């Protein structure tokens, strides 16, 4: 988990705007703020903007999301800031993800009326995944999650491939960017819009990643090894970001 959070933190450049949820994404954004991106603007979908987070929020709507913040506004204001093109990144998750980065957070099963597991639904995910420029996903990596076909497409990734987002009317040039997993960092091929391995975590092989993925994975060349967290990153993560190990202890 520490490696995933540190890798995610490194993708956020200084001066960027990012809509985060609770948990690992929030830890990554806090870590980025305290290391490489002091001028990263954090936004939360319920309306919190630019807080000095005293602790990790429990809810994306709780008062910590605007503690000593720059603005406490509305959900529409946050979503519309994304829609008019001002928000660089968002973090999303889901129970399932496919090769084109589409996400399912609605249900598991094959009957919508009688699902095996009813999950919460889109919440703000489908909005953020449509309207922010780049979508980041932090997730454990296993065959139950990395599936050929989602039980339900909640949030659009590249849908069924090149040009599909634009044809559906989603803003051009937006979409999934990185998928940071327990085994590797994956990106998306510029032309095919399919997921590909960019770097393997230390000690992990391509075969291991493929074995935990239902769909066929390509590899970038050259294939990198994910950088280990620096001593500074680990120190700040453990002492300041998540001293109670709520996230990194998982």
């Amino acid at each position: 988990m520490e490696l995933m959070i540190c890798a995610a933190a490194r993708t956020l450049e200084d001066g960027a705007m990012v809509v985060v949820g609770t948990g690992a994404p929030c830890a990554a954004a806090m870590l980025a703020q305290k290391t490489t991106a002091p001028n990263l603007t954090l936004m939360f979908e319920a309306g919190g903007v630019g807080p000095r987070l005293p602790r990790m929020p429990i809810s994306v709507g709780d008062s910590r999301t605007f503690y000593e913040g720059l603005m406490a506004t509305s959900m529409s204001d946050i979503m519309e800031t994304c829609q008019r093109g001002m928000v660089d990144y968002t973090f999303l998750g889901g129970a399932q993800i496919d090769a084109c980065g589409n996400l399912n957070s609605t249900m598991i099963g094959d009957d919508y009326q009688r699902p095996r597991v009813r999950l919460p639904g889109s919440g703000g995910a489908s909005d953020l995944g449509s309207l922010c420029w780049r979508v980041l996903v932090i997730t454990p990596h296993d065959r139950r999650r990395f599936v050929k076909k989602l039980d339900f497409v909640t949030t659009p990734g590249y849908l069924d491939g090149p040009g599909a987002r634009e044809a559906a009317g989603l803003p051009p040039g937006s979409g999934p960017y990185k998928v940071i997993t327990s085994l590797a960092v994956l990106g998306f091929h510029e032309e095919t819009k399919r997921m590909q391995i960019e770097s393997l975590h230390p000690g992990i092989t391509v075969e291991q990643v493929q074995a935990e993925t239902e769909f066929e994975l390509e590899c970038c060349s050259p294939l990198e090894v994910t950088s280990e967290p620096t001593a500074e990153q680990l120190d700040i993560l453990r002492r300041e970001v998540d001293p109670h190990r709520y996230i990194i202890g998982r």
Partner: protein
Amino acid sequence: MTMRGNGPLFVEPDCDAARQWFREKPKQMSDKVMSVQDAVRQFVSDDDYLASGGFGGDRIATALLHEIVRQQRQGLSFAGHTATHDFQLLCAGNDTGRGQLLKRVDIAYIVGLEARGLSPHARRVVESGQIELCEWTNYALALRFQAASMGVPFLPVRGFAGTDTFDHSAAARVTCPYTEQELTVVPALWPDVAVIHIHEADRFGNCRIFGTSVSDWHVARAAKKLIVSCERLISNDEIRRDPTSTTIPFYCVDAVCHVPHGSYPGNMPYEYYSDEEHLREWLTVEQDFDAYLEFIERLIFDSANFEEYLAQCGGAARMDTLRQQELDP
């Protein structure tokens, strides 16, 4: 490409019918302070479409939601917009031997309590197929309230197209008359009744919300009937000293209930933090159906009012602790 999602439309976006309703709505600056019991008895009817303010477990109208469950309203439709503990609470009226409180739900977010996990009873209720469902997103539902508050039948959005969320919604596709771009449009939603917890109100219903407003600016204006509960009753002079702080004006409000700690166990910005232990207790108890029935019997149905519920949850001492957590995080 689907031109119209296949989900059911529970409220027709008839803006002229809404105009007529708002024309006839009483707009006198009358004293609207009443008990939670009276407000729910008077303004929440069986088969109403209900909306709930705040963000699921943050600044929610818990006292009013408890009372709706306690008075055993039947056949409600509900806007599952950022719904977490509020939805979990309403599910206490389904499959618990008191008929069917929830009948239809517009879903953006239900069943879950964010990182705390999924509610086992809410899952039982939704997975059984007894509720008619329509899928949306948080912003789509926010826009539906916004369209209603503007008095127009729909608004466009550039999101959620091409997904199963769209296919199970009642959204539609249109071509922009200016740019010829493909857009998704969502229909206006006028709830019959909304319940919103706020910080301060005067007796006429001029309201102040501090912190994030989530979608309540629009929910309050879209609702045909609006019950607010407030932490503090303040004077009309106090409202007039700072009109910039008025978030909801009196003419939107039908009832004002004075309920300190009315968002408990939810967070109330600048007042008290969420009671995570109690929320965890809900999720744990729900795993055992018999224990759950006993739990809601004790906390909701056998409690005469919200004050008795607060007393069972640790009373003033517990509220002080949560206040400390909020003010000194």
